[in-house]
């Protein structure tokens, strides 16, 4: 049995909080960013390098890796976004609880990058989801991601709780926050297979000796 739970949102109380409380809330938020790596191509390797011991973004309060989008605050889209993958990115983004932030890492997810001309590459992930920080490069060095994280943390420090930038920005791609019902999907039915159950012919012809 499944239970339909609403996506968690920041309560109204946070809006009315006095300045000191806001500072504390923002301070807590910016140094505990559970990160969700949407790794799609070569840039994901640089992202992983940034999460490892040498560059180590945990010291900036970015925690790798959230078990899933529903437990994460920050999505890093690293790699080539294709038109076929775009709906999945959108779906996982909508599953993240507010406040949520997106870093677009690398030329591909910023604008399509070297594959801009391709028939299948989305010309920037910001056509699908709102992006807070763009990190340029092909691929960007892990230091560039660290700088992107610092930039994002400055943005978080300046915002009013309950008014993350992603909620305020005009969203040409969707009317507004999406309800929980739209983010779940029933199990996909197994396609009918006429030959299912029979022994599939092996690649070897019968005349050949079995090894």
């Amino acid at each position, binding site marked *: 049995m499944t239970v339909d739970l609403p996506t968690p949102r920041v309560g109204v109380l946070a809006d009315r909080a006095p300045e000191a409380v806001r500072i504390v809330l923002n301070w807590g938020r910016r140094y505990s960013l559970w990160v969700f790596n949407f790794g799609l191509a070569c840039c994901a390797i640089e992202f992983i390098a940034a999460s490892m011991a040498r560059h180590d973004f945990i010291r900036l309060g970015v925690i790798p890796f959230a078990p899933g989008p529903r437990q994460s605050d920050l999505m890093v889209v690293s790699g080539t976004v294709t*038109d*076929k993958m775009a709906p999945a990115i959108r779906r996982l983004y909508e599953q993240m609880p507010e406040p949520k932030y997106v870093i677009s890492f690398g030329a591909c997810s910023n*604008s399509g990058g070297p594959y*801009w*001309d*391709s*028939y*299948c590459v989305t*010309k920037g992930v910001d056509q699908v989801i709102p992006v807070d920080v763009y990190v340029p490069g092909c691929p960007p060095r892990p230091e560039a991601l660290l700088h992107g994280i610092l930039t994002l943390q400055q943005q978080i420090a300046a915002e009013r709780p309950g008014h993350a930038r992603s909620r305020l920005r005009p969203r040409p791609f969707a009317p507004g926050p999406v309800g929980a019902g739209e983010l779940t999907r029933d199990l996909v039915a197994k396609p009918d*297979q*006429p*030959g299912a159950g029979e022994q*599939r*012919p*092996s*690649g*070897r*012809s019968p005349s*050949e000796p079995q*090894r």
Partner: protein
Amino acid sequence: MSVPPGLVTRDVPRQEWRAAAEQARAEGYDFFDWLSAVDQSDAEEDPGLDVVCHLMATGPDAPRPLARLLLRTRVPDGQPLASLTGLFAGAAWAERETHEMFGLPVDGFDDGTGAGLRPLLLPDGFEGTPLRKEFVLAARASKAWPGAKEPGEGEGSRPRRSSSRRRLLPPGVPDPSWGPR
């Protein structure tokens, strides 16, 4: 182009494609690696698609350990090619992909589902064969290309006139009839 060691290339006529694959398997090339095509429709003589199939010998009686064989044939436009799915079941995906990306008709395709050649990777409703050279990359017709077309032409650098180099125009870029850019 340098040929990697252990790689044999065999050019066969289109009609003998399946027989050549069968013979190669009898020789010990028993592992189907991949199959794809190269668009040679602008070749001087005999234009068409170069269909390439990569086989490997994994058994103990291989000509040499992990010997590799490239089977290649030139298929004129619109002509069908015999399917290898009866020999190597794994060829089904490769043939479906080559069919949808290059528009190569495949004869006798059977992957056990009876559903025939159908799109594998392209989204539903996609029209055209995107890996052919004649496929127009229509993005430039609807949106300004954000990059620099020539070295030194990017934002913040002065455009250089009259470079002696040939102007770069990648294949597939829409011609002026598609509208102003």
